[in-house]
């Protein structure tokens, strides 16, 4: 494998990171909305979001990407591969993050909500100033764990022709006929991204456990 081939892999890595970032950021924004709807106490909202979460947790990510890619084309939306993949990952991440954060919001002691109410804080302030900062802290290890899953999950985008790291690896491997070497390098690149995140998540978890004693 020469320099330009390795550089091609790095370009793939760039798209992997880009796709992960988009999926995570957009998924986080809508996931927050889903978590809030899921804990709103408004039954139709809770049921709708529960259904949404069940749907995305109960089907493979690959199938979700297919449905978005071909489904959007079917209804006349001809999107770039990267855009439809980004939409697919956003939907996927929003469901999972929504569920993680629902659990975290519910894990904040009820007394916190009561104290905020007794101080006449409205819903927005109660959530923004009191509940969410605590819920976010509780959710960090699980959130980072999900981010690692998401980064590795982006390799599935290769299937609809999006050239991220895994597909870049396939292309190079087909050129130089050294699949073991190429995918070994691809694996190392994934590992170098995901492992530090996992370590960070584990460290946060330990610190959180220590703080709650």
């Amino acid at each position, binding site marked *: 494998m020469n320099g330009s081939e390795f550089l091609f892999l790095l370009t793939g890595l760039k798209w992997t990171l880009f796709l992960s970032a988009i999926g995570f950021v957009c998924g986080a924004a809508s996931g927050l909305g889903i978590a809030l709807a899921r804990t709103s106490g408004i039954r139709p909202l809770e049921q709708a979001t529960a259904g949404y979460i069940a749907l995305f947790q109960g089907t493979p990510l690959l199938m979700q990407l297919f449905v978005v890619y071909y489904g959007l084309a079917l209804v006349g939306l001809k999107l770039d591969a990267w855009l439809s993949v980004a939409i697919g990952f956003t939907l996927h991440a929003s469901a999972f993050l929504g569920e993680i954060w629902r659990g975290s919001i519910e894990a904040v*002691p009820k*007394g*916190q909500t*009561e*104290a*905020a*109410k*007794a*101080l*006449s*804080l*409205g819903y927005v*302030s109660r959530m923004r*100033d*009191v509940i969410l*900062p*605590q819920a976010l*802290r509780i959710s960090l290890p699980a959130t980072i764990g999900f981010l690692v899953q998401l980064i590795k999950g982006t390799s599935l985008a290769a299937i609809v022709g999006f050239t991220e790291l895994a597909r870049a690896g396939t292309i190079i491997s087909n050129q130089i006929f050294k699949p073991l070497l190429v995918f070994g390098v691809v694996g190392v690149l994934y590992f170098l991204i995901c492992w530090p995140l996992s370590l960070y998540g584990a460290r946060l978890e330990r610190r959180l456990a220590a*703080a709650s004693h």
Partner: protein
Amino acid sequence: MTDQAAASPAPMITMQGVNKWFGSFQVLTDINLLVRTGEKIVLCGPSGSGKSTLIRCINHLEPYQGGQIVVDGTRLIEDAGVIDAIRREVGMVFQQFNLFPHLTVLENCVLAPMRSRGVSRAEADATARRLLDRVKILNQADKFPAQLSGGQQQRVAIARALCMEPKVMLFDEPTSALDPEMVKEVLDTMVGLAEDGMTMICVTHEMGFARQVADRVIFMASGVIVEEAAPQDFFGNPRHERTRKFLGEILPRH
């Protein structure tokens, strides 16, 4: 009665025929209570008697199903605006303190005045420092709640409630979660508050406190107000058998 009422301070809290159920279980039955401005009421009774539920109805932490509650002239109805308005006038102190653990002592105190009264940061800060000083904890203003003892946390909780400049303070067993050596510092703070004329309803088993500051002691059992009397009558000459039994169980420990 009318002559006497004209001479007395205005009612701050009126509860008339208040009923409340948890499912099919009735927790409050036909509660009638009149608290005048500046009055100090101590509510006591066995656990499960509904005394906490009663005061939690006043600031609508619990909804009630029958009768009516009027706070400072405003009738408490199921309306977010009305509930908010009443909560701005009614401070509450909880058994478990319920300080916000991710905020410093000072931030705990300025949050609600800024968010819900629209007070400026500088003004909220000044009020908070004055009240933290009053509960003798100003030197801890920049610490987080977890760095304080239980008694200190409860005093911060009192200061936090006072920062909203409430007209009434509700205390829900404020010393029950404290180690014995910290009970006094919290009670002293409450006595100081009472001496300054605050209208207070305290759910507590601290009968020494009741003797010292209460205008009236109310005894509840099974969701009913059984007896209501001035402290000297309540302790010296309880009329009801259940009150005598309760006092017999609780007083030897004090």
